[in-house]
């Protein structure tokens, strides 16, 4: 019995250690549910593939709608995984524990956003060019698409986390998230898809991409703080 009563932890761990433990735990959970990691990925592929089915096989139309379709699918795939970003932690009491942590909650939220992006964003970025190929997009447009997604998907994860936090414990959360988050996603969609369209027609893409970069910076500053505030409200 004695040993139990005086286990001595090492409490000199810094911010970074706590941050990375949050990221690690979420990644580990995602790996456990291996299906999950693959799923937003497959969801993305399936949604992208659904459109041509509904729209018909005309290659010119397809090339024209490709940027929009890929970006809308990326939005939806990113959103699909949002519900599990915080809801499970809320239900089982983990979130209370995070709120009671002496480390800044916004940092912990940033960790969760990072994990979400690693699990949902990265696979999209990797597969999108392949799907674009099937829509017959030219090479430079594919590169622009990947770059745009690289800048845009973290924004999706960060804004999404705010929505997820705001809807915690709210009746019908998973639907409400969509409602809150999709409008916030629209600027990303417009500039992301715009960049690809511009590349297809050989125009300059710099303006679009730098807007995306600006969104990224902006949400990196705002989102962790906003999400933390929302979580505090939800836990109360």
């Amino acid at each position, binding site marked *: 019995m004695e040993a139990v009563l005086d286990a001595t932890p090492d409490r000199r761990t810094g911010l970074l250690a706590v941050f990375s433990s949050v990221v690690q735990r979420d990644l580990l959970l995602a790996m456990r*549910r*291996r*299906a999950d990691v*693959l*799923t937003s990925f*497959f969801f993305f592929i*399936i949604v992208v*593939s659904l459109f*041509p*089915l509904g*729209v*018909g*096989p005309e*290659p010119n139309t*397809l090339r024209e709608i490709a940027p929009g379709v890929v970006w809308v699918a990326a939005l939806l795939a990113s959103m699909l995984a949002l519900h599990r970003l915080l809801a499970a932690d809320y239900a089982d009491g983990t979130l209370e524990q995070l709120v009671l942590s002496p480390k800044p909650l916004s940092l912990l939220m940033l960790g969760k956003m990072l994990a979400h992006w690693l699990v949902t964003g990265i696979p999209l970025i990797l597969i999108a060019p392949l799907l674009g*190929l*099937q829509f*017959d997009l030219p090479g430079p447009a594919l590169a622009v698409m990947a770059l745009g997604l690289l800048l845009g998907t973290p924004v999706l994860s960060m804004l999404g986390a705010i929505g997820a936090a705001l809807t915690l414990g709210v009746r019908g959360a998973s639907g409400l998230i969509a409602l809150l988050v999709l409008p916030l996603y629209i600027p990303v969609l417009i500039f992301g898809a715009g960049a690809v369209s511009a590349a297809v027609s050989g125009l300059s893409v710099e303006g679009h991409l730098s807007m995306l970069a600006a969104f990224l910076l902006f949400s990196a500053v705002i989102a962790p703080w906003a999400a933390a505030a929302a979580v505090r409200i939800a836990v109360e």
Partner: protein
Amino acid sequence: MALNIWRFASPQVIYPIAGRMIPGFMLAAAVLALAGLYIGFFVAPTDFQQGESYRIIFIHVPAAWMSMLIYVVMAFWCAIGMIMRTRLSFMMALALAPTGALMTFIALWTGALWGKPAWGTWWVWDARLTSELILLFLYIGFLSLHAAIDDVRRADRAAGLLALVGVINVPIIYFSVQWWNTLHQGASVSLTRAPSMASTMLAGMLIMVLSAWMYSIAASLMRLRIIILEREADADWVQEQIVPIAQGAKP
């Protein structure tokens, strides 16, 4: 009668029988593949419309047919497992799925390779192609669902149910060329176009189909043996099989 045999055939009985059958099927698959490819690439004449590229048919069609057939067989085993509660039938189904997915993948890939010379594009969103892609997703869904559930009994039955529901897709693939007018050939187009070639082409194709059958049976049996070992790891007969092997004895 056949059903009865399966019903009472225990994994313990099947394990050694499967072991004995595998080499035969493998050999048959190899020989038939060699023969089929020889006929396909050296005996069958060049197609006057498509040139040499049509020869991909000797892989494409067998793979496409197998992909559908395996799904049906898999669903059949699942149904047997659900109705008769036999463990072995679920193991059969699980053993078939990866081969089915592989065949589907090959059909898609060779189709795409063929599409470039034939239609000028790798891929179109045509009904036949899409429903074949759905088949791949169904296989993946079956395997993912199975993998996502820890409890084997539950995983078997849940994935089995999915297989049964998804069987509806197979007729869709098969009849899609009739229901929609698409880029993809209908069932008889390529064979009637040049009647003089039909017999050698047909022979080559059928031999390749047979080879695909043999390969699929062999591969599934191999996987079946592994699944049996995994699931029956605690059973005495497995211990007797495995322990001597681990100690260096001949299996």
